[in-house]
């Protein structure tokens, strides 16, 4: 297997009783990459992360973390990573500061300067007891502990579900910085805007297997751009073009969607009609997401 891959999963299978939670899942994350891990509730994101952390034992397939087996060498490999669960539970009688130091020590060391800087940036009071923190603040405790550790991989399971927009942007800044140091991030998320802003590559998972994977640029290519324009005179020929869908013409106004690969010929036709106004919406991840999960109702956040 490729040593450059921080995470390399091939054909991972994990069953709970008769339920096949993971059914041949593939996932790879390289150095210097922020990898988005998208999927609806119960698709198997948290299960994958738990197998990767050596908490669950795989039933089949290959899992490599830093080139090693995460089940057999869990503690050793964990020195090189930090994990933030989606639902952070703290010890009710320990303060946030104590938890940060404790987790730092258990990981093998903490960067004092970064610890102070992060507490400041996230506006976290480290003297409060675990039971007194709100969900967002508990998440901040885990994030500070993770980001202050000297590690090469961050595994984040919906890390911003309790953060306010201001703190989300602080979070993004630190994740960017972490990546720029050449480290890797696996980011499981429901927040598509966050994934679009942060991630270099994305894997979309459904029912225990990855249904779409690649860089954001690759994936955008698979989606459609929506175009609406006001023209000087009506044009013909749009309907016959390859890749044009849902065309609506109302006098001088046209609206349609076009496969991103076929954008250029469609625009040429519009130019012939004399473009007065033009709005085009680039393909969003949301669209991609909905194309795979269009038949599913989004439930509340996964635990």
């Amino acid at each position, binding site marked *: 297997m490729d040593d450059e891959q921080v995470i390399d999963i091939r054909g991972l299978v994990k069953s709970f009783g008769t339920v096949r939670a993971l059914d041949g899942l593939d996932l790879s994350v390289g150095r210097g990459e922020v990898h988005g891990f998208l999927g609806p509730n119960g698709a198997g994101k948290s299960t994958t992360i*738990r197998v990767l952390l050596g908490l669950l034992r795989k039933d089949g397939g290959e899992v490599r973390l830093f080139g090693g087996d995460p089940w057999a060498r869990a503690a050793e490999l964990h020195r090189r990573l*930090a994990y933030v669960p989606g639902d952070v*539970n703290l010890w009710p009688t320990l303060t946030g500061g104590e938890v940060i130091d*404790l987790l730092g020590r258990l990981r093998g060391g903490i960067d004092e300067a970064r610890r102070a800087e992060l507490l400041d940036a996230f506006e976290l009071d480290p003297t409060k007891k675990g039971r007194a923190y709100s969900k967002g603040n508990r998440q901040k405790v885990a994030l500070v502990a993770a980001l202050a550790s000297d590690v090469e991989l961050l595994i984040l399971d919906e890390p911003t579900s309790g953060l306010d927009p201001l703190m989300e942007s602080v979070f993004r800044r630190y994740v960017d910085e972490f990546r720029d140091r050449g480290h890797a991030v696996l980011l499981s998320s429901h927040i598509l805007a966050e994934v679009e802003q942060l991630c270099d590559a994305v894997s979309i998972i459904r029912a225990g297997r990855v249904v779409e994977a690649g860089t954001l640029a690759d994936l955008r290519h698979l989606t459609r751009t929506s175009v609406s324009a006001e023209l000087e005179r009506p044009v013909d020929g749009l309907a016959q073009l390859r890749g044009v869908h849902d065309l609506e013409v109302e006098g001088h106004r046209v609206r349609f969607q076009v496969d991103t690969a076929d954008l250029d010929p469609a625009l040429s036709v519009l130019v012939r009609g004399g473009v007065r106004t033009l709005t085009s919406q680039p393909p969003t991840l949301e669209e991609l997401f909905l194309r795979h999960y269009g038949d599913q109702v989004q439930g509340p956040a996964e635990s």
Partner: protein
Amino acid sequence: MTGWAAFLRLFLRRDRWMVLWWGLGTMLLYVSQAVSVDDLYTTQAEFDRAAASMAGNTAFIAMAGPARALNTTGGQVFWQASAFGAIVAGLMSMFLVGRHTRAEEESGRDELLRATAVGRLAPTTAALAAAALANVVLGVLVAGSLVLYGLAVPDSVATGVGLTCCGWFFTAVALMAMQLVTSTRAAYGITGVVLAVAYALRAVGDVGNGVASWLSPIGWYQAMHPFSGLRWWPVLLLLAGSIAVVALARVLFERRDYGSGVFAARPGPARAPASLTRPLGLAWRLHRAPLVSWTAGMFALGAVYGSMGNDVRDLIGDSETSQEMFLQGTGDIVQGFYATAMIMLAVIVCGFAISSALRPRAEEDDGRLEVVLATAEPRSRWLAGHLTMTVVGTGTALLAAGLGLGLGYSLVTGTTDELWNLSVPLLQYAPAVLVLSAVARLLYGVAPRAMVAAWLPLVLVSVVMLFGELLSIPQWVQDLSPFEHLALVPVESVDWTAVLGVSLVAAALSVAGQVAFRRRDVH
């Protein structure tokens, strides 16, 4: 208070089984005294002699209450049960009030209900009403059972009414405590201290000139003197006290914000002390409170048994059954009594050992384990930390019980001859206690969902210890209890082969649990 009735219905529905069990337990506490007294003494002369001896024992009076009419069944029942009954009612009230007020507020569940069309006071009023009703259930069960047993009706009723009112007082105290602090646990702590002070004040008063007893609600209850010249007016003290404390709680409620207490939560340290980040640091922090309180409690209990000194000869009486219970096959009744006391103390320590072995399950259930295991902490070391605390805690609790026993005995008899014999040999039971915690550990490794079953061996051990001979339980069942294989100290000397054998069983079970845990999925 709009909508409080709806809350009350919800609370009663949530509480009905819990209240029933508390009520049945309290009822048994009272009735069993009547049954055992009537069983133990076959002639009135014997009863009179035992009563005189009890009435002259300061330790007993400090433990139970003023000695009145101890040569009657009713007098014995009230003396033996009333102080503990009041504490049971106090604890029940505290848990009921806590779970419907502060615990709900702390979890945020309560916000959901408060946002509906209900008054601000509705949940608190309903919690008060629910706890008050639960105490009525306790009182009715106690009074009813004593009447049915055939004791004097007015005195039996007074015993129940006094208990109910005593429970109301502690309900009020708990309600006030819930307003003071933000965490349910801290509020339980305050109520617990009030209970302990109430118990201690009456002990001081009962032993001394009686003044301090009038400062304690438990003292008021006992001042009713059922079965020994009943008087009703002390009930008024309990009622007036309850109303006053509820009024105070109401004032405090108005002065605090929702979700906070009168006293703000104190900030803790911003940095972890070295004691937390050391290996075993976290395990120590998590086990510290129960370990320390069990050790202190076992010391006190040991001291109570020890301070009975040589009086046990008189207390036990001449009847054959009671002698059989304590002789344990030896000639000396005092030695036999202390052999029973030591094995009982050791079996009680099993409560600590098992609950401490259940702690890893709580860590896993609450999702804190995955955070720890995602660091460089290996599974085996994490579990070994908890194991260490169980072993250390079992050792200190046993040693504390032994020291209490030895010191209590030495103080009362004025000789230190038995100090060693009554204290350190208690440690020989450590392997047997650890077998029970090792069963829990094995369950944790193999079937974490079935961990409640970890309490079953303690039931078996207790039944064998208490009733093994009396009920002629088959020998092979008795042999299942690790305690049966160890020597009966101080009557017999320590059997090191048996200690080693039982230790090996404990170690084998524990290692099997560790190995199984390393192989299973963590959720």
